[in-house]
């Protein structure tokens, strides 16, 4: 029986066809993804910690507004890129990032090392009206961020609890006082807190490259 005859069997049996497709298409994913689950668990770098309540809310706003569609958070170990953004990314820096926000487009600059490059005040003005500080900017303005309370839905403790369940090392009392920690903060405060937390990880030996 040659190959064509074998294939005829597959073509005449829907069940075999379905199984064949599933089997063949599953292989690649298993090979590429499983190792990261069972063998190569990535350890957080010494400086990496879970996001505080304010930073977490800020990060979720960053996701909500689609900031990732224009800003990356992944410095590649290419010479010119390292000169521009200082330190290449290390996998241990993103262990608490759900989802990861490395991005796939730089309409605007990479933000993974933006923390404390600009003052809080600059960040606020820039978010409310980008063209006030960068005249040729094409970034949209986000005036509504200063009109809303960061924890308006009163769910920051629920968010931290969910992350705790996923393994983030939050203490119960940290979660209990989360609402108080962010009381009175606007969404603008939260996202600025998040952006200022994106810093170079000085605990990583930069000569070893990306991972």
């Amino acid at each position, binding site marked *: 029986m040659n190959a064509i005859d074998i294939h005829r069997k597959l073509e005449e049996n829907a069940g075999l066809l379905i199984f064949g497709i599933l089997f063949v298409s599953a292989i690649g994913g298993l090979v590429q993804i499983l190792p990261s689950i069972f063998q190569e668990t990535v350890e957080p770098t010494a400086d990496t910690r879970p996001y505080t309540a304010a930073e977490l809310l800020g990060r979720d706003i960053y996701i909500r507004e689609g900031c990732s569609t224009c800003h990356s958070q992944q410095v590649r170990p*290419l*010479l*010119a*890129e390292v*000169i521009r953004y200082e330190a290449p990314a290390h996998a241990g820096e993103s262990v608490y990032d759900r989802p990861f926000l490395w991005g796939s487009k730089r309409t605007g600059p990479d933000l993974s090392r933006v923390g404390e490059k600009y003052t809080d005040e600059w960040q606020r003005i820039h978010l409310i009206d980008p063209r006030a500080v960068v005249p040729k900017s094409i970034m949209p303005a986000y005036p509504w961020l200063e009109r809303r309370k960061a924890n308006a839905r009163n769910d920051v403790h629920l968010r931290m609890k969910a992350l705790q369940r996923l393994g983030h090392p939050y203490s119960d009392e940290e979660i209990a006082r989360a609402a108080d920690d962010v009381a009175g903060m606007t969404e603008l405060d939260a996202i600025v807190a998040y952006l200022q937390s994106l810093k170079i990880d000085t605990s990583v030996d930069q000569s070893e490259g990306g991972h």
Partner: protein
Amino acid sequence: MPLVSINAVIRRPSVLLRLPEETRSFAAIIKKEIWWFSLIPPSFLFIGTYFFGWRIGAEEPIHFEWPVLLSICVFYYVLLFGGLLILSLLSRWMAPTYATTRDLGSHLTVIVTSAAPLFLGSVAHLYPHIIVNSLVFIPMLLWSLWVLYSTLPELLKTDPQRGMLHASSLVGIVMVAGVSLIGMSVVLWTLGIGPTIGV
């Protein structure tokens, strides 16, 4: 007989369609036309870049030392000359599939007539500003496509439908060639053949 390529853009389409009666050999077209026709865009580029520099939107125009500029223009010439020839060879290679003539001269005529609007539009290189060149390039490209689709069947002695298929295959080849050139030049730059980039 009047020059194949200039005819394409200046004379009326009826003149264009009389071309099949006056087919010339591949070698004749190269000797009489292609060698100097391909000189047009690089010459404009040399002159424009020398005086104005490349204006790609950065604050300062990019200028080159004349030996470097010359080598860029020579490369451009080789690309155009070679491209016209290779495309006509590929076009002839596809002839059995679309039942078109196997005469190489006819295929080269199609390629040159279709490319003519673009070659003449390269006058925009006299002021190498990105917006100016884009605004000229786009209508020239559309004109080229129109010439290709409307004259290929007659020039290659086939019916309109097979002609359309053949023309679309050529469009596909040109796009793949274009992106390959982009890819190759990028790889060359990252290997150090070109301005310094920090990869």
